[in-house]
């Protein structure tokens, strides 16, 4: 494993080894050893050509806890806004000696392009590309679900997860469907028909338009953000109607199974897809997702960067 571009490239063993490594690392971060020397002398570039708070900060925190040097690079205020191509940017980073590039880009496939062309020799980690994939988010979601509902070291067999909202534009949903089903969970997508992608029938999931019916039977509810910046077309009549049919509120929260949890990748639109009291309820693990994100990203960086790249990792 040299790059992390999409969940589709991962085997189940690789996915589980990332989760198990993250489990050990999370215990390390809880304990007395906050900072580890593991990636001392390695340079990691955060190349963010699209806005992000938690993913960028999370990767930065993960890299710093492993003692790597982090260079933050955002498109705003850099030469990218002057029209520099991805190729030139990549070659510049290579010339500066980057061991890994974490890339967030609005174009689907940007990370793949960076990895396929020999513009740079380091590892490429996809931190979200267009509407394609967001693998580290799916891994931290699976980690959080497993921590609450599964067993250490196990997969997610028998766990039922509902993903609600804008599936059409969501890279988080795509990565999660691939990962959760690979780990044995059953996934139900709930969305208005206008927010489901073409070809969704071929995905290994159940599709529903009725949130109230689904919510009673699932162990985890993953609310997706309504991406207002991508809502130029009329996907639903208005925000109030969307909230009524597909939002998480107090009444729906009360119908959930006893141990069921609520996830949200953030940032939340409080009052649109999730009410404030649901987001702050005891079922909500949204802040825990942020904490777990750092451990999962430490695991990704450790497995990609700590060892020799010529040799393959096995369990």
């Amino acid at each position, binding site marked *: 494993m040299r790059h992390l571009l999409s969940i589709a490239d991962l085997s189940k063993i690789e996915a589980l080894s990332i989760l198990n490594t993250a489990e050990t690392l999370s215990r390390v971060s809880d304990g*007395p050893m906050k900072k580890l020397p593991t990636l001392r002398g390695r340079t990691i570039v955060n190349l963010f050509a699209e806005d992000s708070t938690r993913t960028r900060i999370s990767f930065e925190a993960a890299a710093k806890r492993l003692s790597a040097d982090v260079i933050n690079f955002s498109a705003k205020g850099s030469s990218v806004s002057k029209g520099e191509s991805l190729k030139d940017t990549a070659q510049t980073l290579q010339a500066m000696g980057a061991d890994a590039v974490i890339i967030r880009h609005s174009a689907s496939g940007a990370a793949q392009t960076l990895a396929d062309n020999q513009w740079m020799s380091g590892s490429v980690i996809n931190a979200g590309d267009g509407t394609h994939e967001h693998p580290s988010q799916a891994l931290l979601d699976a980690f959080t679900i497993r921590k609450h509902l599964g067993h250490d070291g196990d997969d997610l067999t028998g766990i039922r997860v509902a993903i609600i909202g804008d599936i059409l534009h969501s890279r988080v949903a795509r990565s999660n469907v691939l990962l959760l089903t690979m780990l044995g969970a059953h996934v139900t997508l709930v969305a208005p028909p206008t927010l489901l992608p073409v070809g969704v029938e071929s995905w290994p999931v159940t599709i529903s338009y009725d949130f109230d019916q689904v919510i009673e039977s699932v162990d985890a509810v993953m609310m997706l953000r309504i991406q207002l910046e991508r809502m130029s077309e009329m996907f639903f009549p208005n925000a109030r109607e969307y909230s009524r049919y597909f939002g998480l509120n107090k009444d729906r929260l009360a119908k959930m199974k006893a141990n069921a949890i609520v996830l949200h990748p953030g940032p939340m639109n409080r009052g649109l897809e999730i009410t404030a009291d649901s987001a702050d309820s005891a079922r909500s693990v949204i802040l825990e997702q942020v904490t777990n994100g750092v451990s999962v990203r430490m695991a990704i960086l450790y497995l990609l960067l700590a060892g020799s790249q010529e040799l393959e990792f096995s369990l």
Partner: protein
Amino acid sequence: MSLALPAPDMARAITRISHEILERNSGSESITLLGIPTRGAHLASRIATSMREIAGQEIQCGTLDITLHRDDLRLRPPRALMPTNIPPLGVEGRDVVLVDDVLFSGRTIRAALDALGEIGRPRTVQLAVLVDRGHRQLPIRADYVGKNLPTSPSQVIKVHMTELDGVDEVTLEEGEM
């Protein structure tokens, strides 16, 4: 392949190390055993059991994974991480005894000293190993040795323990040259 240490000798070595640790530290109150996974951790819990029988007191015993502190990480494929469990009294001001199965280059112990330094400041750090096979690359020595086993660098020492391998023994194999 030859048998370097059969089960009864291994048991005797563990008992002897337990006595020596108690004698050197005049009692067990200040001692914290930390085993280095995988086999060092099992060895530490056996020594702790044996010390408990001899001293009739609870022994602080835990594990210390040193993978993240290794200096040879880049030379090998990524390693799976093992758990670190520091016993309740911690390491601050304690007499810490690191426990490992085989002492060879000394690099594992160097990494363990680094890892330990991140956790706290023990009063003393001592080292117990089941087998010392020589060929040190660093100025490190063991305080308690089960058996000194002269080897050539190409030979392979394998420690088997019932917890993991179903049998207690140490074998010496000729490596490929």
